[in-house]
């Protein structure tokens, strides 16, 4: 049995890189990423699992970083918005959000992007209803959702076209 008391070192693979930082068992993955590793792209909204701003991928699956203790996913892989593209560049999902006005203030965007990646992984060609259903756990308070849904639609279409051409 592994027992963790006080402050311990927690190792995770974050965006493909092995990272270690000190954490108490009670440290949420949001705070581990932001304060422990300086990755402030993961946003903290409600801190009770409702808003979805802190959504990241844990071992490829979407997860609320505010409802996960860092120590729980010790040794696992976490992907955040910082790892979606090289610095200065945008991923296809990020580009589509920009093109379709899928963001204004940007607070919900890192979570929206993570959920979008997970959705398209699971279902590369979702209907608008499926997109709405999947993103229902991510709350946006400024754009409304039309632009966001259009962005997801756009990436799905682009990826489909790219795989046809390949």
């Amino acid at each position, binding site marked *: *049995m*592994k*027992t*963790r*008391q006080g402050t311990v070192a927690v190792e995770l693979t974050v965006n493909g890189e092995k990272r270690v930082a000190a954490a*108490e*068992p*009670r440290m*949420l993955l949001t*705070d581990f990423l932001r304060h422990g590793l300086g990755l402030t792209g993961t946003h903290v909204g409600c*801190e*009770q*699992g409702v808003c*979805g701003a802190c*959504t990241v991928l*844990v071992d490829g*699956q*979407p*997860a*609320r970083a*505010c*409802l*996960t*203790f860092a*120590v*729980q996913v010790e040794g696992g892989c976490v992907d955040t918005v910082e790892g979606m593209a090289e610095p200065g560049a945008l991923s296809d999902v990020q580009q589509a959000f920009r093109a379709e006005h899928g963001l204004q203030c940007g607070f919900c965007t890192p979570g929206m992007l*993570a*959920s979008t990646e*997970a*959705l398209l992984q699971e279902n590369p060609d979702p209907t608008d209803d499926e997109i709405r*259903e*999947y993103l*229902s*756990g*991510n709350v946006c308070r400024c754009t409304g959702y039309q632009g966001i849904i259009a962005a997801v639609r756009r990436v799905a279409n682009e990826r489909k076209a790219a795989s046809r051409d390949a």
Partner: protein
Amino acid sequence: MKPPTFDYLRPDSVAEAIEALAAHPDSKVLAGGQSLIPMMNMRLARPTALVDIGRLADLRGIEANGSLRVGATATQADVLGHEAVGRRWPLITSALTHVGHPATRSRGTFGGSIAHGEPASELPAVMLALDAHFTLRGSSGERVVHAQDFFLGHYTTVLAEDELLVQAEIPDASGSAWGFGEIVRRHGDYALAGAAVRVDTDGAGRIEEARVALFGVSGRPVRSTAAEERLVGTRLGDRDTAVEAGRLALSGLDVASDSFVSATYRQEAAATVVERVLLDAAARGRGEN
């Protein structure tokens, strides 16, 4: 807010987990944490130790031959995506689409949702409708408890402090008509009122057995015997009977008001949702949806 401090224990077996629970009287079991962690973030729960069973592979299995056996730490997403569950226990699959969101179902567990004992959550009522039973293992051995006897009240079940829910077993439900519905403010929220029904009919479409389970209306999920008795012997899909069963659904129950809705609203909502799911069950049988 941030959760209070606790010691974190990660046992390597179910036996070790039970030992750890027995050795730490104020401990809680941590599986997916999707209900426990928000309560800790808001400091509504302050366990001094968490026993993380999330990595115990032998609690994660899903077997669907004859009955359905779901290990306590199978995630809600695992069960939702399981082909045989979708085919033979569509009531479970349908209910799971209402449990949180993809990003909580990927970590939230089937067993956790049951053991947590939230009265407005979907799976406990579904377990009642499907006549499930649960295997509990603790320091003094193993016992089997029927869903009917498992839930006591708000966040309270018959689980002892050193006991772990290890498996839910659900009898074969193929051939039954079923319905599931809830009234919520937003998709993925806890229900203001909801119903899960399983109905068996004879060759002529007359109801032989009806199980009507309600959630969100009381301190624990409940079966409505009044609605069930009204339904037996009638034709599934009869609109007047469905309306009446809805009206009867909450009779004898103490329905609570809360900060969201009044008891009167909740009663209306429950009546409507029972009526709807009964008609849905019949329409599904006729291949209309």
